[in-house]
C-alpha cells in the first residue's frame, strides 16, 4: 500500500471542483428563466405603439380643424378616439388643448395628452 503511485490524485480533486462548479451553474440557470421572463414581460407590456398610434390620431384630429368641422362633429371625433382607445386598447384617454402660444416665430397649440391603461401611465404636453 505504501508504495502506491499517488501522482493521479489531482484528477480526482479536479473532478470534485468541476462537480461543485456545475452545482452553482445549475443554481444560476434556474434563476435565469425567471429573470428572462420578467424582463421580456416588461418589454412586451410597454404600450409604445399604442401611444404612438394615439398621438397620430390626436394630431389628425387637430389637422381636421382646418377642414371646418362643426362643434358637434368635433365632439363626435373626440368621443370616437376615447371610445376606440377604451374598447380596443383598454386605455383611458383624455386630451385637450389650451390657447395657442407664440414660439420662435410660429404659433403653436399646446395639446395635453393623458393615457392610462392600468400598467402604464403617460402624460404629455406637445406643441403642435
Amino acid at each position, binding site marked *: 500500500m505504501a508504495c502506491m503511485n499517488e501522482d493521479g490524485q489531482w484528477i480526482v480533486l479536479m473532478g470534485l471542483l468541476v462537480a461543485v462548479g456545475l452545482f452553482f451553474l445549475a443554481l444560476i440557470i434556474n434563476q435565469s428563466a*425567471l429573470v428572462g421572463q420578467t424582463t421580456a*414581460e416588461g418589454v412586451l407590456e410597454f404600450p409604445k405603439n399604442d401611444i404612438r398610434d394615439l398621438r397620430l390620431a390626436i394630431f389628425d384630429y387637430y389637422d381636421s380643424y382646418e377642414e371646418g368641422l362643426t362643434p358637434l362633429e368635433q365632439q363626435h371625433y373626440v368621443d370616437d378616439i376615447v371610445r376606440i382607445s*377604451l374598447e380596443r386598447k*383598454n386605455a*383611458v384617454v*383624455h386630451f385637450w388643448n389650451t390657447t395657442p402660444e407664440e414660439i420662435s416665430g410660429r404659433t403653436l397649440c399646446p395639446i395635453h395628452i*393623458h393615457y*392610462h391603461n*392600468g*400598467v402604464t401611465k403617460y402624460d404629455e404636453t406637445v406643441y403642435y
Partner: protein
Amino acid sequence: MKINEKAVSEAIGFVLILGIVISGIGLVTLYGYPVLVKEQSNTDVRNMERAMIVIQNDMKSLCFKNVPYKETALQVSGGTFEVINASDYGGYINVTNGTADFQQDYYLGALTYRSDRGTGVITLENGAVMIRQDWAAGSAMLAEPRWFYDDSTKTFVIYVMNITTDTYMAKSGMTTVRMSLEDSSTQSIPVWPGDNVTVEYTGGSSGDYSTAWENYLTGTSVGMDKTAIDGKYERTDVSKLVIKEYRIKIRDI
C-alpha cells in the same frame, strides 16, 4: 512511510466502516426522508404557482392584446389541476354604481390546483392568481388583475374574466391548456356625484379568497375602502365606471 501495522485488523476496520454506513442510511431514512417528501411537495406547489402565472399571462394576451387563441403546456405534479365552469363555481363579484339603477353579478369560474401531499390550493380566478392553505383562514394574491382607477379622468375600470368550459375537466401530469376568447363586452356606466361604486366579492367552490381580494381592492392601485358590510368595498370620487367583461373558453386541458 514506515508505520508499524501489527495491531491493524482489516476485518475490524470493515465492520466499523459498514456500521457507520448502515447507521448513516438509518438516520437518513428516519429523519431525512420525511423532510425530503415535504420539500418535494413544496417544490410542486411552487412550480404550479409559476405555471398559473404563465396561464394568467396567456389570459392577458387573450383579453388585452387581441389574440384569439392560446395554448400552454405545463407539468402538474403532486396534485390535481381542474377547471370549474362559471355556472358551477358559485363565486361572483357584484358591482353597483351606488344606485339601484345598476346592480350586476358577474360570475367568475376558476382554474384550481390542489396539492395531494400538502395543503396548498392555488386558484386563478378573475385574472388573479391566489394561494391559500386548506383548513386555514386567509389567502394571498400572487399575481394581480389589472383593475385601475384613473384619477385625472375619475374613471374606474373593472375587468371581469369569466371562465367557461363544456365539461368538467381535471388532470395531473403533462397537460396542455387550450383556451380561446369567446366574446367581450364593454359597459360604461355614469356615476352621479355623491354616489360610490361598490364591489362585493363572494367566494366559490375552490375556497374563500376574500382576504386576498380585500388586500388587493384596498391597496394602492384600486384604492377602495371597506364598508360596514363584510366583503363589500366602495370607491369614492368616481364619475365613470367602466366594466370590461371577457368570456374565456377553456377548450381542453
